[in-house]
């Protein structure tokens, strides 16, 4: 392989590395038997929240302040990328007794 080609590849790889935050984390939240765990989770902007529904009925993860409203079909896992910082109270629209808190820090994970 020519040296110029190698440099090009290295350059492209460096660009890709800059575009994707190095360690965007994945935070898992489980809904099972109509309970959300953990009841309080911490994340950063850019992190992915993985929502696992272990019940046979659908739930939602709905932010009280309107920041997000994610449908969670029965026995499925869905993901959602956090875009906004803040302490967000969220609940299930179908079963409003299901409640939890997500603390989203402003500085993206590195």
């Amino acid at each position, binding site marked *: 392989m020519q040296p110029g080609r190698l440099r090009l590849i290295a350059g492209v790889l460096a660009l890709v590395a800059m575009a994707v935050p190095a360690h965007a984390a994945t935070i898992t939240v489980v809904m099972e038997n109509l309970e959300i765990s953990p009841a309080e989770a911490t994340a950063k902007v850019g992190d992915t929240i993985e929502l696992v529904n272990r019940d046979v*009925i*659908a739930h939602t993860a709905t932010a009280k302040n309107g920041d997000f409203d994610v449908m969670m079909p*029965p026995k499925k896992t869905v993901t959602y990328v956090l875009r906004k910082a803040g302490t967000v109270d969220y609940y299930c629209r*179908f*079963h*409003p007794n299901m409640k939890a808190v997500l603390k989203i820090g402003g500085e993206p994970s590195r």
Partner: protein
Amino acid sequence: MFAQLGAAIAAVMLLSGPALAEGKLTDPQIAHIAYAAGNIDIAAAKQALTKASNKDVKAFAEGMVRDHEAVNKQALDLVKKLNVAPEDNDTSKALSKQAADKLAELGKLSGAAFDKAYVANEVAYHKTVNGALETKLIPSASNAELKSLLQTGLKMFQGHEQHAERVAAGLK
């Protein structure tokens, strides 16, 4: 209002009355009561889906059909696994009779009046079932799996009650 209150009180009396006072409920009887309670709410929701006009009321009714069908299927699977035959009893018969009367009563209403009456009855009905689950059915259940299904059922019924309250508040 009086009719609703009367119906709720009648149901509470049924669930705590002689039928239950005579002795401890057996697991087959408990399973049947819980199953009947779910079916009653499905029938009410299906009526609402043909009559309701408000979109939140319709969405609520869809949710009731979806949730109660899913949980009743679990209940049937458990009953099969435990090899018990669900047993009709005075409580489940009385519940079903009362529900049939309510369906007929709501059937005469239409438009916003129907929406309001359906949602108000959903709040009252879920409250009644929650009370029965908490004070009678869960404490009486002996099989651990049945008990745990009833406990999950209680949380779902409590969630539906809160959901119905929110929908009711939105109708005012």
